[in-house]
């Protein structure tokens, strides 16, 4: 009996915490707009008139993106620190943090998304050729 009551109390706490959180979600504006989330959820068959659930999905997605971005940022900074050690002159230029495909693919691999980026783009006839043999 006691255990059940304890279990019930815990469940009530969880429920109340969840409902409080959902209520607080209405104050928080996620970066991903509600219309976009609604559109894609509708495409996959998700049906719910409750706005709080849509906000929850938006916030969850935002958290996911933030995690990926922070992982990629760490990769970028690690690479920059390795480079800076070699050439101190380029410190000014390398201060700009740019999201590159390499960092992104490494960060996404942890989430289970395998992204392979092209090594080069063959968009001109002289791509990949020796600089000497290019007709220019």
């Amino acid at each position, binding site marked *: 009996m006691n255990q059940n009551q304890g279990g019930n109390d*815990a*469940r009530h*706490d*969880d*429920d109340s*915490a*969840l409902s409080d*959180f*959902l209520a607080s*979600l209405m104050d*928080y*504006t996620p*970066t*991903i*707009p509600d*219309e*976009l*989330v609604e*559109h*894609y*959820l509708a*495409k*996959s*068959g*998700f*049906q*719910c*008139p*409750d706005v709080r*659930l849509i906000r*929850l*999905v938006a*916030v*969850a*997605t*935002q*958290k*996911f*993106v*933030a995690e*990926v*971005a*922070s992982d990629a*940022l760490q990769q*970028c900074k690690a690479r920059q620190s390795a480079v800076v050690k070699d050439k101190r002159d380029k410190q000014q230029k390398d201060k*700009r*943090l*740019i*999201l*590159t*495909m390499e*960092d*992104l693919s490494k960060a*996404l691999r*942890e*989430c*289970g*998304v395998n*992204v392979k*980026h092209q090594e080069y783009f063959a968009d001109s006839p002289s791509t990949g050729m020796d600089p000497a043999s290019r007709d220019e």
Partner: protein
Amino acid sequence: MSDGGGESGRESDRATKRKSSDRDFPQAIAKIAVAQICESAGFQGFQQSALETLSEVVVRYIRELGKTAHTYANSACRTECNIFDIIQGLEDLASLQGFSGASDSDHCLAGSGTVREIVQYVSEAEEIPFAHSVPHFPVIRDRKQTPSFLQIGEEPPGDHIPDWLPAFPDPQTYVHSPVTLEQARQHKKAEWSLLNLQQQLACNGLEGPSMIDPGDAAKARRAAETNPFLSAPLHFGEKGVSPVFLPAKLSNEAVVENQAGENHAVANHVSVLETFAPAIELMKSRSCESEEGRKKVLSNQRPAVQFKIEIGKKSTGTALDLSFQNKDVEKITSWFGKDNEKDDKKRRAEKILKESMKNPQELAQL
């Protein structure tokens, strides 16, 4: 290619991206949102391909979450999803990375580790609202529906057709009528009248009598604006049209204007008039009676075209809703009253001669 990091830079990039890779409006919005989140994480620039990839992944994440939640709801014999379906979906998606309490098999969903992580994130992260106001999409276009019999006030042809059904289209749209040639000539007439009006406006000092009423001119202009066929004047011979008719009254005035207003006229109009010049000269050479305004037909270009216009018969082939055309049709019918007869007689005589020529040949062949 790195983004400037500012809103303006992103917008210009967005404009170029839209042409090349953005097929969808929601994808573009997702890109902006993702860029904003990455900016808050500390990035100052993005590679275009990286941004596209990440936004694509985000879209798939949302869709996967929705699909999983929907599947769980269906498994519980429901069609509408609730919070627990979403939490189960979140747990499924986060199972790769892992969350606290993932190994517990019988924990309550309300206290799931994923939810706690989200709560933590919301309390820590700063609130970044989306940069633009997003309209409600997809926008459903209002289609103009064909009115029903009842709305038009027509009686449906037949008892078996109820009157709330859409009405049949006009018979001119599907019945072949020989009045199309007249329509083409009416178009030409409208263009010509519009040209003359423009020329009049161009040469201000000239005192030329207006050959068309101001009401007609306004209507012609309106018709030119609404009707794409009247928008640009066609050059002589550009369109395969039956003989160009030039009422002598108009041609005389046009010639006068041409001579005097050559300096003022716009190049386009002058060139069109020049193309009309041989026809105008032909008209001048012929004697034309202008008592009742009856004009002669210029019948040199296409003698094979045979049209029969009777006085007093209104043309019913005007599918276009231009009222001024009816007036001109009446004018034309009054013009070609009796002057045609001589030409027709000549043509008939020629035809008979030709046929008689053919017959002995055929007989010889037989």
